[in-house]
């Protein structure tokens, strides 16, 4: 079943994460502390991305549009 192999794969990925960050060796309360810290950092990062990235992208887009927009107007006037 695809779901079962997907679940196994996700469990294996979780095991790799545990081994690399050494949370495999930690006692349960240390694990809770570590995961809480990590999840908090991740959530804060995602929240910051959600708030700031669209604003920055639209500002950058407007800047570039303004640059190319000006050029277009100039060429049009010269041709005329």
């Amino acid at each position, binding site marked *: 079943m695809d779901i079962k192999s997907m679940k196994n794969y996700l469990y*294996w990925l979780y*095991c*790799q994460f*545990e*081994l*690399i*960050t*050494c*949370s*495999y*060796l*930690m*006692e349960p309360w*240390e694990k809770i502390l*570590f995961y809480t810290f990590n999840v908090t950092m991740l959530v804060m990062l995602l929240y910051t991305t959600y708030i700031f990235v669209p604003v920055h992208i639209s500002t950058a887009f407007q800047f570039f549009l303004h640059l190319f927009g000006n050029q277009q107007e100039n060429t049009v006037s010269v041709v005329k």
Partner: protein
Amino acid sequence: INHIVHNGGLYKRPFNEDFEETPMLVAVLTYVGYGVLTLFGYLRDFMRQWKIEKCQNATEREEQKDFVPLYQDFENFYNRNLYMRIRDSWNRPICSVPGAKVDMMERISHDYNWTFTYTGRVIKDIINMGSYNYLGFAQKAGTCQEAAAKVLSQYGAGVCSTRQEMGNLDKHEELEKLVARFLGVESAMAYGMGFATNSMNIPALVGKGCLILSDELNHASLVLGARLSGATIRIFKHNNMQSLEKLLKDAIVHGQPRTRRPWKKILILVEGIYSMEGSIVRLPEVIALKKKYKSYLYLDEAHSIGALGPTGRGVVEYFGLNPEDVDVMMGTFTKSFGAAGGYIGGKKELIDYLRTYSHSAVYATSMSPPVVEQIITSMKCIMGEDGTTVGKARVQQLAENTRYFRRRLKEMGFIIYGNEDSPVVPLMLYMPAKIGAFGREMLKRNIGVVVVGFPATPIIESRARFCLSAAHTKEMLDTALKEINEVGDLLQLKYSRHRLVPLLDRPFDETTYEETED
């Protein structure tokens, strides 16, 4: 990295040694792991100091808290916070003879490895990939055991004296003559403990005003002996002949540091097989350098005697050299002969001098008679003097096992250090959590391995060390390889970026080259 050009014809066979570089990602992730553990270590130390958590390790007494702190250096920090978490992979009690299969007592810990309790169950028939049982002489039945039992009933177990007083038995004389014949030297002397052979005899050979050139990765016994002697010690890079030659040239040209007098003696300390790396010393080049610069060579064949060479005479026979070129041949009986103790072989004058001036001869108790008989029987078996071809078959079986095991592991994609012909196989693990995980997972699958971490190896290069044995049959090796493959996939240990093309079933000879694709 794979083939060394035959240096002016010094080598009669290809010398394939390989230390693959650590992949960058793996090194970074290892440091991340150690960083996380260090932070948690600081947190736990803080909690222990402020009595939030019970302190279970050794600390100073209340009255001594204002003295110079004893447990604040890195080694003790590492011990408390990292070693304790994975401690169950070491000091496992075994309860049978450590042959190809071994029985182990099961133990569990309820407080995260601070204390252990035995469940009472004995795990039987664990495939033993950790014992130094190269020729399979660790047996509880057979000719060696019968001969040792007979000598035990004749001489008893204790000697109760040193060699120089009343402890020199006729068995010891017989052993020493046999060892001298085995090695091809004039004379030999045997001691009760391998570590003590090194640490007690190097001070008798060199003293102040002499120079010792020792390899970077020499064993603790050689380092201790060198330091006890009081000679000047200079270290050359591991197995690096250019580094050794540079040191020799500097020593001859500049002499002693302040007075510029010539050195009284220059002694080069090397080992036959280095047990943490699995590398073999470049003996032809070392001997050529020794002759050119007129220095002495001390060769520690602890792991290579019995394990290398077509008839098991060690690294000197492996390279086809003359044993008289090596001034002091030292070895131990612990590894290939299934006994305990060490020996030193060389010229008759040297050994007679050591009989009088070595600390071990004067102060240490001599070897126990059944142990001596075990060595005599096993050595005669290897030499073929007991009338059978068992010894030769074992030496050949070990060589075949070594080649097969190493080739299969490399094909699977693990990073394996060391020379193609050495029966010590280090498999790189790198990350600290994988050290504990590997030991535990292999034990679950009924295979006993030795994993090695920080003080014995550099901090990011932790490894699992397999010691092959002539007692391992092909089926055992295949089982072990299958389990190692599974555990390697589970823990993602296959870091190697050189993929070995599987060899066809051709016999391995000097014309077979490694086929690699990068």
